């Protein structure tokens, strides 16, 4: 049973001089999952990852990776994880192949093993063309791939990536995401980010951190369901009074907001109740009344929406 858990964190707390970065954090990750650690800057994502990768110990609490304690069995843990820190630091004066070989040797691979593994990861990360180039001369996207290749080179069971797509252009982001998705087929992956759409596409489960605390831990699907759809925006040509009456009658509309748009149209911003897709409902009503509709869309969630939602429910619970 314990073997199934790749990461097992209990009551983890990390205090720096003056402030607490992680407060009483408890979570676990199963083998084979791709888990996203989501939070704003300073939420404790990097600190958690640094503790898991044995860079520094926690103030209190325990963390286990594949059954090994990160403090007492640090070497066993380090052999099992591939860690790419934030901003992906590399030795810029080395060539790509040379760097990866150096890292492979550090991680305990024999000369022959390191040679074949470096060839494998160069291929896997699409670095074949630049393997003889100096890292300092590579573009950011390639450097990110070198960082990923480094994390993979010793065939770790767990891959920890801290903000893997930060600072990349959209094409590079897509490539890196695809790479992470592929990795998820054979590895357990923990990635951190502050961009929701990123984890939405790659991760099967989300851990949402805020102020060093775990706010929520659920499958990506459930997280999105719990918070419900975003606002539905419809532009309809109808008298404002009729529209008001209409939205008040629909039970699924929690809140509405009308504002005049250009032409005869009125812009209606409708907040649905949790978990409801308002778009078909709105369309049905428009059709019944014979109004003209020129736009209907549901806005995407941002991380801010989630935090607003989660902190609001907390407050409501407190008040009850």
């Amino acid at each position, binding site marked *: 049973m314990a073997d199934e858990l790749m990461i097992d964190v209990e009551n983890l707390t990390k205090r720096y001089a003056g402030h607490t970065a992680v407060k009483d954090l408890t979570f676990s990750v199963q083998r084979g999952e791709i888990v996203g650690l989501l939070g704003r800057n300073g939420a404790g994502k990097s600190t958690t990852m640094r503790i898991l990768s044995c*860079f520094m110990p926690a103030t209190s609490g325990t963390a286990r990776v594949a059954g090994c304690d990160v403090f007492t069995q640090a070497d066993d843990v*380090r052999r099992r994880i591939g860690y*790419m820190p934030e*901003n992906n*630091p590399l030795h810029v004066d080395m060539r790509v192949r040379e760097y990866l070989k150096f*890292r492979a*040797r*550090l*991680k*305990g691979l024999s000369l022959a093993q390191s040679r074949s593994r470096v060839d494998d990861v160069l291929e896997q990360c699409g670095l074949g063309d630049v393997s003889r180039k100096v890292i300092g001369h590579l573009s950011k996207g390639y450097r990110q791939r070198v960082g990923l290749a480094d994390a993979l080179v010793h065939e770790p069971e767990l891959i920890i990536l801290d903000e893997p797509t930060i600072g990349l252009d959209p094409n590079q982001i897509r490539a890196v995401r695809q790479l992470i998705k592929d990795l998820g087929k054979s590895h357990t992956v923990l990635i951190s980010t502050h961009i929701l759409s990123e984890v939405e596409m790659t991760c099967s489960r989300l851990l949402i951190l805020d102020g060093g605390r775990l706010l929520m831990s659920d499958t990506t699907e459930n997280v999105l369901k719990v918070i419900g759809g975003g606002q539905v925006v419809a532009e309809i040509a109808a008298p404002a009074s009729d529209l008001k009456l209409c939205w008040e009658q629909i039970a699924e509309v929690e809140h509405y907001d009308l504002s005049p748009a250009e032409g005869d149209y009125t812009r209606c911003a409708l907040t649905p109740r949790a978990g409801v897709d308002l778009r078909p409902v709105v369309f049905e009503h428009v059709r019944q009344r014979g109004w003209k509709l020129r736009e209907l869309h549901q806005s995407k969630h941002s991380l801010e929406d989630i935090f607003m939602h989660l902190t609001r429910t907390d407050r409501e619970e407190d008040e009850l």
Partner: protein
Amino acid sequence: MRVYITLLRRELAGFFFSMTGYVLMAATLLLLGVSFSLLLESLNADAVDVPITELFYRTQFFWLILLVVSPLITMRTFALEKHTGTYETLMTTPVSDAQVVLAKFSAVLVFYLVLWSPLLAYPWLLSRFTGDASLLNPGALGGTYLGIALFGAVFMAMGCFASALTRSQIVAAMIGLALGMALFLGSFLGSVHPPRADWQTQFYRHISMVDHLQDFCRGIVDTRAVAYYLGLTAFFLFLTLKSVESRRWK
């Protein structure tokens, strides 16, 4: 052992693949050359009855290399890696703190010895062009080389410690310079105080680098001095290790 060698090679490559290494080598070569020509000049002037090796270290350039170049060699060891962040990737691989400290120390010591290596050619140059082999005493030469190596070990360990304290190379160099200066200037405490037959004078004599080097240059290898420098080296390496480990409890 494999990790140690991998790290050592990487550290040395850092010197030889970057400008830093060559700038330092050029500067040292210049200072060594100047002190060598000064030495030849003084040989041409009046007859002196001190060994030639002693004449060599009496030129200020000798100390300049030790005091100024040493912190420049060691400043990058830890500070640079902390600054670029590669320290984090290094410390999350299965290597022990002691391996990292030893590898970095060995690398700077090797580089330091490489810097001094032109010195090995000077005895040959002297005997080749003066035609007088009696100028050179193998014992005095060996002692001088040993002294330089021992001083180097202390200064390199001190510099590693300074570098482990900070993430700025400049600060590391300044701390290293201050420590080195303190150790060197300690040599003159004995002459500032009027010599007395008490323990203070004894103590000052035992920590005087200038006195020690004088002995070494005359071919006298005093085990007390050797033990002193090896001990200092071990002490500073220990401090470096503790400083590296301090991220666990800081």
